[in-house]
């Protein structure tokens, strides 16, 4: 049945993605909820929250707030905290409650901005979308606001040898910090790697017009890359430079392989497997994802999963030799099919909440760019 999860649990949603993209930016993040969404976002989807304090707050909405539409009260509370903390901006993140009662998040942001004179970013998530949509929305909003078209200071001179990394969140990387990601780009010969949202904060966003090139490592970075290309002429490519070596080794001898992850990572694994010697002849490697897909990376035979039933059909009926995916997804396999398939674990934090092991980060393969000099007006990611 569509939308029914009997063996899986829900994946990270858009509001978690948005908070993840904004987490290290130093702003005040107000999650417009009754508390439960904040608990889920911070307590489950944000591994940095356990050890690093961040200005994340719940609006603490109650039934009377919803009934009476007390937007003014929420703005007043938000302005009071933003003023006291002296933050450079505030973001208002939507959840199911404002979505259902029709709260105008943009109007809330305008009211706050007018009151306090600092940027208020509206993030119109609803809790029904997936994390990549929310992360992409928040990231693009951030760039549009802090690195606007025509901002001469943002682009006054290009920093030779610098690369901007777009789409990095713990939900994609499975890590609390992006040091290994930056290191992977430095190994490519870049002098400086700026991982927006994981190591690089608001100051880097303000100077985003100066990097020589952007690299998108997850579909959530695509819209921002397109924006920075059109606003500042910064070319971008698509890559995932750190495929764990053990994955390639574990797939040795498999002819029919299915890779499931966020689309860029999964396509990079495919590229790495295609580059590895295969004594059994040509391999058939399909990619599947529950999340947004980069149209130019989709091949015939790839899969876009909508729900658990979709996944079950492909896993149980595909006669795969090897499946590279988060072990959590293995729950939907029938006993018989599970016995025939080699499962190679590739954790995806947005799916299972599991972090990636240190060893996977230390020993990675860079399969090169998946797309180079992608176009400005390319097709939007599709689900």
């Amino acid at each position, binding site marked *: *049945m569509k939308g029914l999860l009997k063996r899986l649990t829900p994946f990270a949603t858009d509001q978690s993605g948005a908070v993840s993209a904004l987490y290290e930016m130093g702003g005040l993040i107000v*999650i417009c909820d009754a508390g*439960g969404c904040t608990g889920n976002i911070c307590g489950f989807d944000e591994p940095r929250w356990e*050890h690093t304090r961040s200005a994340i707050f719940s609006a*603490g909405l109650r039934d009377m707030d919803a009934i009476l539409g007390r937007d003014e009260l929420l703005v007043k509370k938000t302005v009071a905290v933003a003023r006291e903390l002296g933050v450079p901006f505030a973001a208002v993140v939507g959840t199911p409650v404002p979505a259902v009662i029709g709260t105008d998040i943009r109007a809330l942001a305008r009211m706050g901005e007018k009151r306090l004179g600092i940027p208020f970013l509206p993030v119109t998530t609803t809790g029904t979308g997936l994390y990549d949509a929310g992360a992409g929305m928040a990231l693009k909003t951030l760039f549009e606001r802090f690195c606007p078209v025509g901002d001469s200071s943002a682009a006054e001179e290009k920093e030779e040898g610098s690369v901007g990394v777009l789409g990095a969140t713990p939900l994609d990387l499975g890590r609390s910090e992006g040091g290994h990601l930056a290191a992977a780009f430095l190994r490519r010969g870049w002098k400086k790697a700026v991982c927006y949202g994981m190591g690089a904060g608001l100051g880097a966003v303000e100077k985003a017009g100066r990097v020589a090139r952007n690299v998108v490592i997850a579909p959530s970075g695509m819209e921002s890359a397109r924006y920075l290309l059109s606003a500042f002429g910064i070319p971008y490519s698509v890559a995932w430079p750190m495929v764990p070596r053990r994955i390639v080794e574990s797939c040795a001898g498999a002819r029919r392989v299915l890779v499931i992850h966020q689309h860029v990572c999964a396509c990079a694994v495919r590229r790495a497997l295609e580059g590895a010697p295969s004594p059994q002849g040509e391999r058939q490697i399909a990619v599947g994802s529950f999340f947004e897909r980069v149209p130019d990376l989709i091949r015939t035979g790839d899969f876009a999963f909508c729900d658990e039933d979709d996944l079950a059909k492909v896993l149980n009926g595909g006669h795969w030799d090897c499946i590279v995916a988060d072990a959590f997804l293995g729950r939907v396999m029938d006993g018989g099919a599970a016995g025939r398939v080699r499962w190679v674990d590739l954790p995806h934090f947005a799916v299972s909440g599991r972090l990636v092991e240190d060893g996977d980060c230390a020993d990675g393969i860079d399969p090169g760019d998946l797309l180079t000099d992608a176009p400005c007006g390319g097709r939007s990611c599709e689900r």
Partner: protein
Amino acid sequence: MSGAFFVPVGQLAALAPENWPDALFSSRHLIYSSPATLAFNSPGAQGFGVKRAALCIPGSVMLLFSPGCCGRNTSAVGGPDGTYGRRMRYLLLDEADIVTGRYLNRIVEAVREICESADERPSAVLLCSTCVDALLGTDMERVCRRASAETGLPVLSCTMYALTREGRLPPMVLVRRTIYSLLEKAEKQADAMNILGYFTPLRDDCELYDLCRGAGIRRIREIGRCRNMDEYREMARANFNLVLHPETRLAASWMAETLGIASVELTRTYQPEKIRAQYAMLGQVLGVRFEDSEHFEKASEKLAAFVRRHRGLTIAVGETANADSFELSLALLRAGLAVAEIFATVDPAHAVTLKCIAELSPDTRLYSNLSPSMLLYRQKEGEVGLAIGQDAGWYHPGCPCVPWNGEAQPFGYAGLCALLDEMERALSGGAPCAGGEA
């Protein structure tokens, strides 16, 4: 904002509740999100929230129908043996579902599919709704009736309405009623009682069991000990209910009206004299005399010995613990220990305890975990020697800590003794708190 807001208890106790500072009222400010507030924002993230609590009904399964965000943390909170997570099902709603209301028909279909695909037929299906249905005003009783007619199984509604947590009937009160709602009136057993209030049983070594058995109450039932529906149904045969948590009063009152089971309420306390007084009162109600002197002496002596060994120890008490932070603070102060900080959500019901604390330690600082200013909290180096409660531990990284939030519920003298054992263990080099980076 120069630092975290606090108010000395002496100052607070002198004020009428209506004059308490705004920072102590969660409705008057944004709510800070930190590991110390996780239990408030998302009670199910650790311990029991609505989802896990409702699944106390043996053999039941739950269908959570909601946007994906509401069920996201469930895989992390599968309980100690992971079985709770395996009894959860989800029907994800998208925007079109919410706008059209079409999911209400799909719920019935989903319940049927869940029952048909289960290895073992569930004893009951719990339909868990969220803030979305609270706002839409969904008639859950009707949905439950339809699903029940379709499957022939009991189908119950439980509500995870965070919007109403400070209302007259908060979710954790309602779920405590839901879990007993499948009981049907049955012939009473004079020697049977139920313990209500917690979702897991009391500690096995709790003297309450022996005291009651000594008084002729041979059948003591708790929902957390029911292994199957037969044992669960036996709870309807109790002669009386012992209520140990105020959020169970609604359930107890429902059981009195529907099943004819009266109730007696006791409070969890860590003060030996109060424990003794409560047992004496319970004895009076039951017409027996509990012989608890030995337990009292042992617990009192253990407490006194601890204080002798750790004279000068200063403690921070939090609210993410199996204790009322104010009552526990008072117990520690009365025993002769020092309490420098209390992290808690205060309400007017605490006024009397606050006055008692103020008499003994007016400078004890009260912080509200929920106050935005807690982002700026910094511990005073070297002041606190022991943190009790997971939240207090988070504020004092590196300090010996007793999280005191385990599954087995502490109560009575045994609860006090167990707490003292844990405090001793922490002070003698047990694992310190992980804490939060300043």
